């Protein structure tokens, strides 16, 4: 059994509102080639198993697993799909290596969101067909309900949520991978159209296309392949009730539970002390605040104040979403968690360029699968 597992290669392509020059297979191939080159492996010879994260209706194909192997070098190899976020995929690769049956495993996630012409209706098809779908409501209503209850229970404000948008889109200006960098004011964010009050349109991450591939390896292989292996110290994932009728509307219970699992593995008791940098889900701005509380970085109701005070800015106490988050890099569907993890890997390697944070040794990535789900995952990485 291999106890220690590291990320030894990363590759990506994108991230842009549309990518008409290549098909999804060609796009993924480029990201994968970069990851394999980065890891110094030949996928046909060295990579023993492959994991893809994808959902049929996001691809427009039933049984999308069929179309996953070729572009990642997995043809006629042990390949499987997880219908989860990229962090679920990393956790899967982590488990596969820990069994001792595999030394090197690759994980792929991508978005061709620009190809889905009816995305709101596709998203709504995830609602319960008997209880909810007959109401014919745009799925943003679920975020509106959640945000409103979150603000109510925690005494947080729309301004605090807007501060997340300002921070993350400003951070994105220093990230050449991020298409949605901007220098915004509170007024800019709050004056945008309302989508599902209290949720405004500028608090919603816009979709983008792109692909991310990572290569994971057992300790022995990692040390021989890489000068800068990034170790997986903990993985956690969890679901709250999928039913809108049974869930906790204010708290991200799945993140609390996923974090508990990951912290236990990593031996972390005080996350704020232990963790130097975090990338969390911000596909809706309030989700960042909710996540920071669920992850135990602060008490309930404090995340908004800390954000307004700049505590989560790059040069401050706990830099959060230095990459720009999903608000800056775009909502990448199943690849969202991989984008969060990618930034942590780059930061821990000291390869984050103009946005590099000093002295980072331990980082956390967190993801959520979007409305209407209650599915989240946490990954803890160290250099």
């Amino acid at each position, binding site marked *: 059994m291999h106890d220690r597992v590291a990320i030894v290669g990363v590759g990506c392509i994108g991230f842009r509102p549309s990518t*008409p*020059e290549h098909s999804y297979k*060609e796009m993924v*191939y*480029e990201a994968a*080639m970069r990851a394999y080159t980065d890891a110094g492996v030949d996928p046909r010879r060295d990579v023993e198993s492959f994991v893809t994260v994808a959902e049929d*209706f996001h691809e*427009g*194909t*039933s049984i999308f697993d069929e179309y996953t192997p070729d572009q990642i070098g997995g043809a006629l190899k042990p390949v499987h799909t997880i219908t989860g976020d990229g962090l679920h995929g990393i956790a899967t690769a982590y488990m596969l290596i820990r069994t001792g049956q595999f030394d090197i495993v690759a994980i792929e996630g991508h978005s061709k969101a620009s*190809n889905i*012409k*009816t*995305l*709101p*209706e596709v998203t*709504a*098809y995830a609602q319960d*067909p*008997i*209880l*909810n779908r*007959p*109401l*014919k*409501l*745009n799925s*943003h*209503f679920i975020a*509106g*309900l*959640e*945000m*409103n*209850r979150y603000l*109510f229970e925690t005494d947080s404000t729309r301004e605090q949520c807007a501060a997340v948008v300002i921070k993350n889109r400003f951070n994105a200006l220093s990230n050449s991978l991020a298409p949605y960098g901007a220098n915004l004011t509170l007024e800019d964010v709050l004056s945008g*159209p*309302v*989508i*599902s*009050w*209290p*949720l405004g349109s500028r608090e919603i991450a816009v979709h983008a296309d792109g692909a991310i591939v990572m290569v994971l390896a057992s300790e022995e292989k990692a040390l021989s392949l890489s000068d800068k292996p990034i170790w997986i110290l903990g993985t956690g994932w969890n679901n709250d*009730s999928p*039913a*809108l*009728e*049974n869930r906790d*509307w204010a708290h991200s219970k799945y993140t609390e539970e996923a974090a508990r699992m990951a912290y236990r593995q990593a031996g972390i008791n005080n996350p704020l002390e232990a963790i130097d940098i975090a990338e969390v889900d911000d596909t809706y701005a309030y989700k960042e605040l909710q996540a920071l509380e669920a992850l135990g970085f602060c008490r309930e109701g404090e995340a908004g104040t800390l954000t307004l005070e700049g505590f989560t800015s790059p040069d401050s106490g706990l830099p959060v979403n230095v990459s720009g988050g999903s608000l800056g890099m775009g909502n990448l569907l199943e690849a969202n968690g991989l984008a969060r993890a990618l930034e942590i890997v780059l930061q821990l390697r000291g390869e984050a360029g103009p946005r590099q944070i000093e002295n980072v040794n331990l980082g956390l990535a967190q993801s959520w699968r979007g409305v209407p789900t209650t599915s989240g995952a946490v990954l803890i990485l160290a250099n």
Partner: protein
Amino acid sequence: MTLLQRDPKAPASWQGELPVTNRYTYGLAGEKFFRTIKDEGHILGTHCPHCDHTYVPAAAFCERCLRKLDEWVDVGTIGDVVTYTFLYVSLDGSPLEKPEIVAFIRFGDGGLIHRLGEIEPDQVEIGLMVEAVFKPKSKRIGSILDIKHFSPVKI
């Protein structure tokens, strides 16, 4: 990274649809839950004695312990607004001129997602007591839409 040149006449994209058409049965619990809404205008839940949790809408099983639930309870037609939103976009993403008022209304330990009606947006608040307004019995088919909306309880 490709050596090949894309044919300059290549079409940018290929258009198509994913034809998915479904028929959903309401299932073991849904059958009785919606029959009762249709025939009696009552809202039912099921209670899990093991977890001391009352599921509304009624469920056939407890999601926490997976035990079978057969203790049915009538939870009345009045509940409180746990959270609400004013929704300005329609199902296809186009803007709505007049927002929909959508709420989660608590019954038992669960509740229902529905529209609020007979109310102005500025009157909506968390904790507001609202009552189910049913369609006339003759128009009810056994659907969540047999409830027209929830409106403030008239005192």
